[in-house]
């Protein structure tokens, strides 16, 4: 009797472990439209209304805890924010003059003006109804999908409401169902964004630093590039001259600011940047559903 119980227990454990590994392997092997992905989308479709209801109902609880956390860190943030405000005030004055000059020069050489706001990109505002429970902060679920014109691959912007530099790119739509979508965040290892500093002093690929949603890496920066602490990093947009190689992301979407540069001046110099948006505090996002001039 005892032997039978032990055998049964071990068989169940072995079976469950084997099932997990088979699922894992199959999920990796199959394409995006495979059976398991299809099942996931179906479950997402069913669960998302419940998630949305729970998310709305539990908002006061989340806000209460958020208030406690914010109060603890507010003092340190205030000093930092004042310092940054002074820096930005100076930069804004400079930029205003540069922007005016840029417009005049564009008009002079007959270039079509790039869209000055997001309206041209067909932004769709959506509410965050679910968030990755793991430490990897890899995905969020939003309450709009294909019925609102949202499809896989579209860029997603957000603001975390912390004031100051709180708006920026947070990722791209990974999967879209009829009434809901899953957004893969910049902190996911499979997301890479072609980016540059605002003044063009460095060009590279923004990648995540796992486990730290407040740190990204600007990888593959050339030795000749000169990234510096404090510079803003934005999306590079389409670099290729052919229309077949469009970038997923429009140009000049803010991503973050450089906080330090490892091995500066070396062939493998790596700037680290702090994203403008705290990915754990996002409540609303904007999905850009249109491309303008192939995202150039």
């Amino acid at each position, binding site marked *: 009797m005892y032997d039978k119980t032990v055998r049964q227990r071990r068989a169940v454990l072995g079976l*469950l*472990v084997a099932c997990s590994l088979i699922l894992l392997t199959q999920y990796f092997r199959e394409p995006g439209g495979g059976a398991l992905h299809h099942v996931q989308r179906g479950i997402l479709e069913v669960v998302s209304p419940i998630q949305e209801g729970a998310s709305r109902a539990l908002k006061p609880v989340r806000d209460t805890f958020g208030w406690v956390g914010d109060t603890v860190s507010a003092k340190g943030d205030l000093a930092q924010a004042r310092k940054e405000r002074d820096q930005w005030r100076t930069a804004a004055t400079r930029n205003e003059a540069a922007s005016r000059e840029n417009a005049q020069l564009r008009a002079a050489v007959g270039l079509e003006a790039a869209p000055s706001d997001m309206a041209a990109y067909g932004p769709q505002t959506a509410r965050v109804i679910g968030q990755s429970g793991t430490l990897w902060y890899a995905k969020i679920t939003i309450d709009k999908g294909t019925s609102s014109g949202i499809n896989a691959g579209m860029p997603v912007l957000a603001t975390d409401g912390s004031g100051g530099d709180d708006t920026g790119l947070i990722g791209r739509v990974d999967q879209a169902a009829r009434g809901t979508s899953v957004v893969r965040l910049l902190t996911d290892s499979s997301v890479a964004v072609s980016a540059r500093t605002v003044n063009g002093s460095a060009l590279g690929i923004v990648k995540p630093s796992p*486990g730290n949603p407040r740190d990204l890496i600007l990888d593959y920066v050339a030795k000749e590039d000169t990234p510096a602490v404090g510079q803003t990093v934005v999306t590079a947009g389409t670099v290729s001259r052919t229309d077949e190689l469009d970038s997923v992301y429009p140009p000049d979407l803010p991503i973050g600011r450089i906080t330090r540069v490892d091995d500066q001046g070396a062939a493998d110099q790596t700037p680290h940047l702090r994203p403008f948006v705290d990915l754990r505090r996002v409540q609303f996002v904007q999905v850009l559903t249109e491309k303008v001039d192939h995202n150039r």
Partner: protein
Amino acid sequence: MAVSPQLILRLILLGLAVVILQVAAVSQVVLFGATADLTPLAVAAVGLMCGSISGALFGFFVGLFFDAALVQTMGLTSFVCVVAGYGAGRLRELRDPQATVVPMIVGALATAITTFGYGLMNFMLGIDAPVSFLLLRVILATIVFNAIISLPIFALIRRWLGPALPDDPRRRRRRAYTTGGLSPLSRA
């Protein structure tokens, strides 16, 4: 342990509630850079109350639902939750600990197994960026949070599953000894 249909129904509802609560609310509450994780606590609680097979099965299906709801790699959370549920269940079957702090210790251990296990599996699956000190700090903070909330969570789960749990003969015997009913000394 014989599992009644009533217990299965309660376990299904518990699994659904835990995943939805975790995804829709708990994961969005950040304190000191970390969040609590109800999933390993629920799995460990079920293992501790229902045994290793029930714990492992509950862990598998909760993990599967969690991965499906978040469109994550299927099988990853299931794998780590099976280990946590089975481990908690074996602890009950071998030692049947009764101390008040048991939920805290088991909850912390289950969280450690799932978080470190999940991290390890992710790295094995090809995340090529360096491990940061912050990741370790966040994992430790999550373990501490979970240990703190484990007592009320275990109590709630015990209350929810209690009416459907069969009376354990060993526990019944222990209760009888404690109250003097079956004690050889009292009979002498």
